[in-house]
């Protein structure tokens, strides 16, 4: 895992990352967690909506859309392509 910590909203199209921390209110955190946005979970940016926002992420086998204003508060660690290949 690389040490550069960035927000989920900075992820490039198609890239995979691991969620580190969600910096939102407990209620908002709970809501996000129920959709699979948990620390340690893998997340991939699948596509952006036609207007560029929200973005669609692949997480835990489903596709979930988040606005940039929310994704900004989810901190991630990028996974380099070589590390990605090693993951199951």
């Amino acid at each position, binding site marked *: 895992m690389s040490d550069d910590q960035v927000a989920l909203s900075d992820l490039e199209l198609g890239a995979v990352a691991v969620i580190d921390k969600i910096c*939102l*209110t407990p*209620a*908002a955190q*709970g*809501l*996000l*967690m*129920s*959709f*699979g946005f*948990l*620390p*340690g*979970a893998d997340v991939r940016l*699948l*596509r952006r*909506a*036609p*207007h*560029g*926002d*929200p973005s*669609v992420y*692949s*997480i*835990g*086998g*489903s*596709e*979930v*859309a*988040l*606005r940039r*204003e*929310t994704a900004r508060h989810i901190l991630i660690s990028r996974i380099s392509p070589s590390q990605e290949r090693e993951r199951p």
Partner: protein
Amino acid sequence: MKSAPTIAAINGSETSSASVPPGMRTVALIGPPNSGKSTLFNRLTRLRQKVGNYPGITVEQRTGLLAGGGKQIKLIDLPGVHGLTPYSEDERVAVEVLTGRMDGIRPDAVLLILDATKLTRQLTLAAPIIALGLPTLVLLNMADLFAKRGGALDVLKLAQELGTPVAFVSAAHGTGLDAVERFLRQDHDRNSVAWLPILQDLPQCQRWATQIGSRVDYRSPLPPAWTRRLDDVLLHRVWGLLIFALLVTGVFQAVFALGQPMSAAFQDTLTALGEHLTRSVPAGLLRSLLLDGLWKGVGSVLIFLPQILLLFFFIAVLEDSGYLARAALIADRTMRSAGLNGKAFIPLLSAYACAVPAIMATRTIENKRDRLATILIAPLMTCSARLPIYTLLIAAFIPDRPIIGVLLSSRACAMLLLYIVGFLAAVATAKILKSSILRSAAEPFVLELPEYRWPTWQAVGLRLVDRGRVFLFQAGTVILAVSLVLCALTHLPLQHGHLPQLDQSAVARVGHFIEPSLRPLGFNWKIGIGLLTSVVAREVIVGALGTIYGVDPTTQSMTLQNALRHDLAPAGAMALLVFFAFAMQCTSTLAVVRRETNSWKWPLVQFTYMTGLAYAAAFMVNQVLSRLLK
């Protein structure tokens, strides 16, 4: 389905027991949103229940009796939940029922339905549900998709890990359901599941679920290739928007281009039928009452059945296929500019059908103020009850000309404009509310995009039958009653023992009394009476006008369209359309707002605001157009 339906029994948990009382048993059906609960519920009960490929369709618990089987078993369909910590009103309902805190309902057993294709995530719900200690059957739904896309898991091991029976099912195709029957026929101990870790927070549940997943050799299925490929087009920055626009206009064009001839044919049939039925009645007062008053009143509303069913058909197909979630994604920017929660899109969209279920669907919105704002604007969305008066006036006053070839005619365009006007009014109202009395912190917008599925004829058909039945019931009761009363009042009071002229009747007196306040809008007294009756429900005005113009000797021989053209100036007709776009004429909606907000304050505010808005807008339209069209 490729994988055979399996049921894994667990040692000890299926021993017969006398602790379960005979007779009526209650079974709760629970699962995460969009896991297929309602489809399964329909399968098991054959009760008509709305199913959509969209999270948040079931907002109230529904009950039905299990079809077939000797024992009478009551099945409760609960709203989708992610966990047992409620974040929204609908989750709270589910939790209260399950924990026995809801009055009069206490489930004896639980059917937990999980989407097999997303098992590691959905399994997080299993821990708190099984920990409730009720006999539980875990159903792994979408077994067909799971197998087709290369997913695999050891069901026996999973049953062992969970301590409950587990079965693969496909609710959509009805396979594997014998497992449910077998489970329900057995008696179960309410024995404790003390071995299960009590997991309070989600990260812990998730870790537990991941562990279970690896222990049962869960192999997650490949991502849905077709859904991804379709979304490459349907969510494309150019094509996606184009297709969205085409679909919306296409639906309106189809409702007109296909619906109009169907309605016309239906009208001819109804007219012929009416004459045939009253042939045995001697010409005279009674016949005129029956044919011109009642039959014309009820019939003038009935003929819109084909168009309403067409609209519902398109909504059902878009919803069941999974496209609506994409539409919500595309529309999110507009929602946000109004300061609305993205989740408001779901209820607002269903408000195109009817505001009543839409207002109930606002229970999925976690934030109280956001929810209230959505409730208050929902009736401004163009519901299907406006369709009869819109179609009638548009067909009567707007000539049919192509605007974009066969794609869009002037009439469909006028209809589309009315829908847009209603939508803009809703958005503007929301903006005002959200920046003043209902200001609140932003709630995150989280939207799951379901896989695309083929809508089944059965699901779409059931919804059309349901809708048709509601419409016919309304026509057979409310509209019939209003027509009857109006018809009587047009023939009263008797003058020197003779029937009065229409202008001297009780109806006309009331009409003339309110006419001065409506004249600035371009409405005459007959429209005024129609407006009064439509306070009950919007479509009633068409029935009322059908009766009044049917009784009036000068317009008796005309169709309602021609009668209106004869009696109403074009500017007044346009003002009437705009009036209907904004006015709050629906007692059912007012009642549901009162119930959901728990006070008379909000329905009163809503009624006053919308009627005021309608009056002002109709006034402006009439004043401007009557000068322009001179």
